């Protein structure tokens, strides 16, 4: 995530988190119900398809009808359209005419997975530098122009991709396409700009990771779960790699990966596909075709034995996170791995898909509860290897070991006894409803299309996934619970709280300690003064 919009910041001063799907933390947000986000991501695209409609249903509906106010005669939404320009750039258009606004996004299939040792974080640093000018635009000019159009903009970096977006009144679509094509082709800045911005990126790492014990735990758990896969490195990069990064590292990454055949433009909202095609040819069509460098597979090694890490840090609450290596969905072919990946998503939902689901009920309730929070999530699709996560905060008086055992016992219970039809149907109902709710956000629809393209999945991947998830049986859920949760594919991370000394932390990461040992005095002249007011 590049930059934080400061308009809707919560009053505690912390920045708005980026959308979960693109959160910097790579694995899973610390204690959130990540599983819900995974499921929601599935529910995206076109519910519009009549193919999901059993014939002959004559529902009693209060909906559509009774229009008041200005109503377009066009359909509210229609299926996405995809085409490729001669230089290899993909264009995806999703009309949704409810309001006179549009989202324009540029996706590059380059994220932290494409980095190598020593320059971790470079994909994200480049994302920041993309705002620093082109051959014809100076520093900050890009943002000023988008702002003058009434637009909002930002960007995000994940393991698998980097994305740039603008939300604009649809009348200004051509201007943002012109600006984005210019930036994609001609990103250019002085070394001095890099030296300032790399400090901003380090502040971002400090904000998101270095003062958060759980984020630090996940970073190390991740680095232990993966050995050969580039997924072992944090998206934001190790602090030492940021310290050592050079302007040329960033320019090299830009030249290597920002080629038309490695990019997609997604436009959603009040737009006409034919007009978008004309504008894309005019502005993006001018980018010269270049060969895409060879991608090394760097596949993860098979795991054959449990791994366990301890992480000690000043904190009040312990935390435990379990990461099981599991198959990913690479296509919608009916292979054993694809089927298992889908059944694992259902398993995660049965465990933690809603309040009152199994983990909540068994671990967080009752007078002898073991957890203050417990969660489960399943990775489904990605460019790299996937995991199934279980995590939680032990209740007062309970140990991380007790919680670890309780989390695994819930999976074991399903492996032994299976799940009920009622549970299965409950999570399926939730998905079907969320397909409708999703349609309220054009931004989310555009984002999901970009994700599907990044993964090499078809545009109707959301629809296909829902259809396949609905067909998952209780027997399949039981079967994946039996086969994927042994010791040998498991990595466990435990946060062991260390005492705070008064109000002071007792330990610091090296980089921060070095900084803290640096020059300069404290702030202000008066020191701590009594709150004088009223």
């Amino acid at each position, binding site marked *: 995530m590049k930059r934080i919009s400061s308009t809707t910041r919560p009053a505690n001063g912390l920045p708005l988190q980026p959308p979960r799907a693109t959160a910097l933390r790579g694995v899973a947000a610390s204690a959130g119900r990540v599983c819900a986000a995974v499921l929601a991501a599935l529910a995206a695209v076109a519910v519009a398809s009549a193919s999901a409609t059993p014939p002959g249903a004559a529902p009693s509906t*209060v909906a559509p009808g009774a229009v008041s106010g200005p109503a377009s005669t066009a359909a509210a939404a229609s299926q996405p359209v995809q085409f490729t320009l001669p230089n290899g750039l993909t264009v995806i258009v999703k009309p949704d005419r409810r309001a006179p606004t549009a989202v324009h996004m540029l996706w590059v299939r380059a994220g932290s997975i494409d980095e190598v040792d020593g320059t971790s974080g470079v994909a994200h640093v480049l994302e920041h530098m993309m705002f620093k000018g082109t051959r014809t635009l100076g520093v900050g000019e890009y943002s000023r122009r988008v702002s003058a159009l009434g637009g909002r903009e930002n960007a995000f970096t994940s393991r698998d991709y980097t994305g740039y977006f603008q939300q604009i009144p649809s009348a200004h679509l051509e201007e943002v396409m012109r600006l984005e094509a210019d930036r994609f082709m001609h990103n250019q800045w002085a070394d001095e700009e890099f030296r300032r911005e790399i400090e901003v990126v380090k502040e971002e790492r400090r904000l998101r990771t270095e003062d958060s014990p759980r984020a630090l735990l996940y970073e190390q758990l991740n680095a232990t779960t993966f050995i050969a896969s580039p997924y072992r490195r944090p998206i934001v990069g190790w602090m030492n790699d940021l310290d050592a990064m050079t302007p040329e590292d960033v320019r090299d990454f830009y030249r290597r990966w920002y080629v038309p055949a490695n990019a997609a433009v997604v436009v959603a909202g009040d737009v006409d596909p034919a007009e978008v095609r004309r504008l894309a040819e005019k502005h993006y069509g001018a980018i010269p075709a270049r060969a895409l460098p060879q991608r090394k597979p760097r596949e993860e090694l098979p795991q054959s034995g449990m791994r366990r890490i301890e992480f000690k840090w000043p904190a009040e609450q312990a935390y435990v996170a379990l990461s099981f290596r599991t198959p990913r969905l690479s296509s919608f072919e009916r292979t054993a791995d694809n089927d298992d990946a889908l059944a694992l998503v259902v398993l995660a939902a049965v465990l933690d898909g809603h309040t009152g689901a199994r983990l909540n009920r068994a671990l967080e309730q009752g007078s002898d*509860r073991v957890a203050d929070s417990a969660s489960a999530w399943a990775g489904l699709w990605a460019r790299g290897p996937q995991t199934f996560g279980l995590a939680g905060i032990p209740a007062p008086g309970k140990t991380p070991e007790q919680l670890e055992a309780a989390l695994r016992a819930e999976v074991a219970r399903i492996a032994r006894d299976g799940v009920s039809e009622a549970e299965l149907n409950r999570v399926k109902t939730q998905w079907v409803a969320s397909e409708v709710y999703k349609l309220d956000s054009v931004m989310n629809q555009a984002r999901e299309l970009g994700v599907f393209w990044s993964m090499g999945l078809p545009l109707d991947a959301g629809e296909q996934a829902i259809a396949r998830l609905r067909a998952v049986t209780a027997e399949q859920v039981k079967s994946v619970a039996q086969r994927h949760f042994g010791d040998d594919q498991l990595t466990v991370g435990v946060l062991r709280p260390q005492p705070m000394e008064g109000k002071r932390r007792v330990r610091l990461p090296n980089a921060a300690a070095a900084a803290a040992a640096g020059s300069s005095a*404290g702030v202000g002249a008066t020191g701590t003064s009594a709150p004088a007011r009223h």
Partner: protein
Amino acid sequence: MHPITTALLALLWLWVAAPAQASLQLQHWTQPSGARVWLAESPAIPMVDVQIDFDAGSRRDPAAQAGLAAASASMLSRGLRAAGTQAALDENQLAEAWTDLGASLVARSSLDRMSFLLRSLTYRDLLDASVRLAARQLGHPAFPADVWQRERERISAAYKEAGTRPGTIASRRFTRAVFGSHPYGAEATPETLERISVADMQTWHRNHLQACRARVSIVGAVTRAQADELVRTLLAQLPRDDGRGCAPLPAVAEVSPLSAPVEQIVPFESAQAHVLIGQPGFKRNDPDFFALTVGNHILGGGGFVSRLYGEVREKRGLSYSVYSFFAPGLHAGAFTVGLQTRPDQARQAVGVAREVLERFVADGPTEAELQAAKDNLIGGFALRIDSNAKLLDNISAIAWNDLPLDYLQTWTQQVARVSVADIRAAFARKLQPQRSVVVVVGATPS
């Protein structure tokens, strides 16, 4: 296949060709119960969002029981009492009932408001069932004592954990310093939570959640007649009022201005120092609202083109996040400038931020800055209302703040009318940078 799932699937295709845009034509009426309703019909998607607001936010918490409103809100989803022919539901049965409907009812409390957000599909059977369940939940919460005991422990443990983070420490200090003894500055702590019982929640529920006090905002695929019926059902089981249309609730004191600057430099070993600068701001009904909103957009609200962004981040690389905002409410919410930086840079960053603030208050924006802000705010107005969720936010603000029904239609004109002189005068009236609260947690000690 579950019957409701089957029904949903059968219905999904129906909305496809529905016509589009939500109506800005806001409809408003008062029901015989006294409940006030605001509706924007938005027929394109077969869903509806309903927000019910009550004057029952944390500003009404007794000082010794800070957290009562928030606790009551969270406990409202923890089970239902038996009522009439309907059996009691425990917290899990209630959660399952919502999940089976593909719908949700979320309760949340802020400083001013207690809000309930119902989201449902609008297929008649599902919507009827969702509204009936919401009505029961609003009217007959069980407030089970054992569940509150558990929740209190969880909240208290999380409170202590949060207190190990520099950002939380800074924010708690700042809030207390800005508001003093005013309830806007009160904080729920393990001690205040210990003094809250389920009997307090029942009393709170009885005294505040009454139909005559409800302001209901609706955006979705319902007609006025359907909305009227929906609200009647929704509020029918709330506690009875006094029969005289709800006596006014006790007045809450106003926030006092700061009498002197406050500077709190809190030693803390962390990777970053967290900086908060500010003071009491203004009330939402202030006639300077638009001048202050546009002005803050230029100062630190406008994202990547604001003055604070340019000076603190773009020119100096001192912080990833730097911003300013007002939080106008029924009382003068805080004006806040915030940033985080490496501990050894804190002094410099505070200096830069304060200078930007002081110069802005003294001189106001340039004509060019004002024009750029207007281009963004006016040009981008459509982005504020281009989904049901965003529209609902705006409509509930209209409902809550007694804004005119044409507020959204005249919004861009109000922005266009603001002058440099207006902004300078409004900032001079509201902000006294020399008398700010400055909280810095984690700076390198001098």
